[in-house]
């Protein structure tokens, strides 16, 4: 039987009453009272406690406001050990006794799960989600953007027509109708919209020397459309963003900002992944059409040397790196291919370039 002195608040007034408390192990409870009259008894089954710092506060669920207070570490240790031996500690008390090392491990573990979820599960789920989204969403989304874009920019209709005829000569494995538009602008760029609209700037066309380079560009952009890269990107970005904000926003604002930036970097790497896929499939489309696949690397080498202006889209977020060209060359070597001069395409290319 361990005894100690403490304070008792009766839940009626704030007056502290000095008491003596006895841990009664035989009757499984606490006996306490003023001086030596230990008239009150709390059974351990009714007891809840909080142990903060060196203060032990004990309550009884039958008198929720009455409170026993003890500042005696020896007593507190014995009391908690007794509760533990009698199976009166809740799972939460057990967790709280784990200590800092365990907490840090838990923190690292959660972080690991989050990172794994973000890197592997989110892209997978997003990609599956894209399969569920009907393609007419892609079409109406792209269409809205296209109308707006064409309105704000100068379309070269003669060149656009020639470019469409050029593309019509090629077998492009497309599932939706393709439509090409040439915009009169010195910008060295091109991009594709999810509805099959592909926009090419005259700045890029002027840089090309041969029709196989144009075929390379078309192959690349068409691959984006065929693989629904825009929609995949959108789904990945959106789900990644939701995931990050759901996990971090409750922690604090600064973490959310850090998370956002990490996410931007990550989405840039998604887009690189898509670019590589388009390079690869674009090259394969050239082979399929009997066009010299070297046109793709020629185009990239030319773009690389002319890379002076910073521009978004086709180039800047995914610069023409040497390894991108090396990869295409490797693919060409691997792929058996035959090509022949195509005078029809050559003729149309002249019209596009004129």
């Amino acid at each position, binding site marked *: 039987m361990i005894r100690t002195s403490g304070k008792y*608040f*009766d*839940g*009626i*007034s*704030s*007056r*502290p009453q000095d008491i003596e408390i006895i841990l009664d192990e035989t009757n499984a409870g606490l006996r306490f009272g003023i001086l030596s009259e230990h008239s009150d008894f709390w059974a351990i089954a009714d007891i809840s406690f*909080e142990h*903060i*710092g060196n*203060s032990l*506060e004990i309550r009884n669920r039958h008198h*929720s*406001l*009455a*409170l026993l*207070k003890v500042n005696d570490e020896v007593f507190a240790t014995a009391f908690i050990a007794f509760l533990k031996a009698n199976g009166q500690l809740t799972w*939460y008390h057990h*967790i*709280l006794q*784990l*200590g*800092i090392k365990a*907490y840090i491990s*838990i*923190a690292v*573990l*959660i972080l690991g*799960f*989050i990172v794994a979820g973000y890197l592997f599960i989110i892209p997978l789920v997003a990609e599956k989600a894209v399969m569920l989204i009907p393609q007419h969403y892609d079409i109406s989304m792209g269409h809205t953007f296209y109308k707006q874009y064409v309105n704000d920019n100068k379309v070269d209709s003669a060149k656009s027509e020639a470019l469409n005829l050029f593309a019509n000569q090629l077998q492009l494995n497309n599932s939706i109708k393709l439509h090409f538009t040439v915009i009169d602008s010195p910008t060295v760029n091109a991009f594709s919209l999810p509805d099959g609209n592909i926009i090419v700037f005259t700045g890029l066309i002027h840089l090309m020397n041969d029709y196989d380079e144009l075929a390379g560009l078309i192959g690349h952009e068409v691959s984006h459309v065929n693989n629904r890269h825009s929609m995949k990107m959108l789904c990945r970005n959106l789900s990644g963003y939701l995931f990050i904000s759901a*996990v*971090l926003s409750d*922690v*604090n604002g*600064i*973490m959310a900002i*850090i998370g956002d930036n990490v996410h931007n970097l990550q989405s840039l790497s998604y887009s690189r992944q898509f670019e590589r896929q388009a390079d690869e499939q674009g090259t394969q489309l050239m082979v399929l059409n009997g066009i010299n696949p070297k046109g793709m690397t020629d185009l990239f080498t030319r773009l690389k040397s002319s890379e002076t202006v910073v521009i978004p889209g086709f180039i800047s977020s995914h610069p023409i790196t040497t390894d991108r060209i090396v990869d295409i060359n490797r693919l060409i070597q691997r792929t058996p291919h035959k090509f022949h001069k195509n005078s029809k395409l050559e003729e149309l290319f002249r019209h596009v370039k004129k």
Partner: protein
Amino acid sequence: MENEITELKNYKLSFHGKGKAYFGIVIVNWLLTVITLGFYYPWAKARNLQFLYGSTALDNDRFTFHGTGKEMFIGFIKAIIIFGVIFGMFFLFMYLEMPALALILFYFAIIAILPVAIHGSYRYRFSRTSWRGIRFGYRGDRSELFVSFFKWIFFSIITLGIYGCWMEMKLRGYLMNHVRAGNVEFNYRGKGSEYFILNLKGYLLSLITLGIYSFWWYKDLFAYYVDNLSLQKEGQQINMKSIATAGGFFKIIMGNLLIVIFTLGFGYAWAVTRTMNFIVSNIKLEGDMDLNTILQTEDDYNDATGDDMTGFLDINFIM
């Protein structure tokens, strides 16, 4: 008990929570919330409050938060239903192609929810707080607050927000003047005009000094809140005074920023305990009240809906 002592006493307000202990609670909360896909949130919130209240002491006796995860979970579900209905209405009218009506109703509902949520939150949180076994309580009237709130919002809108300062003081006054701890009553006497001038000065000087003055502004705001708060019981009283300095605010804010950034957020627990310690140790209590003679006056109350609604609206309104 006879009380003829007239000289002023000092009361000690202190915070004993250690970052390490709080870190354990935060991490366990985080883990369980993630594992349960968010459903642990109400329990996490209760644990959190239990720690923070339990670590704060007046004259070496700790405060206790009696709220439970179960109560908060019920409140959480009710709050979800209320917000579900509001958003449901919004999307229904959007679907019916009446966007103007949808928006008006939506804003009206959010504004109408605010006083109800604040009232509920005060009612719940204070009734679940005790010190030395004496329950706190909030005795404000919901309909009265509701009507006043709409009046204040209306004035704030037509004065392009200037009335906001008056609104804030009136709201704080209404709330605090209805808070009690047993038979001790709280009293707040901040005025809109003084508060407005304080903010105007703070804003302009912060602008001119490129934000450097903002630490003095924080100091003034904190002092304005604390200095106007007092406790009364049977003619005895306790006055509060802030002893926080601008330098203190600078240290706590910049320190927390660095801690959180350099620990990639894991130092959050330390940032909170530092902040609590800063707030609590900068409030000086002085008066002639006998803390041993407070009597129990409040009933039990266990509806946490308001508390969860303020949580969803992202307003942390308590104290």
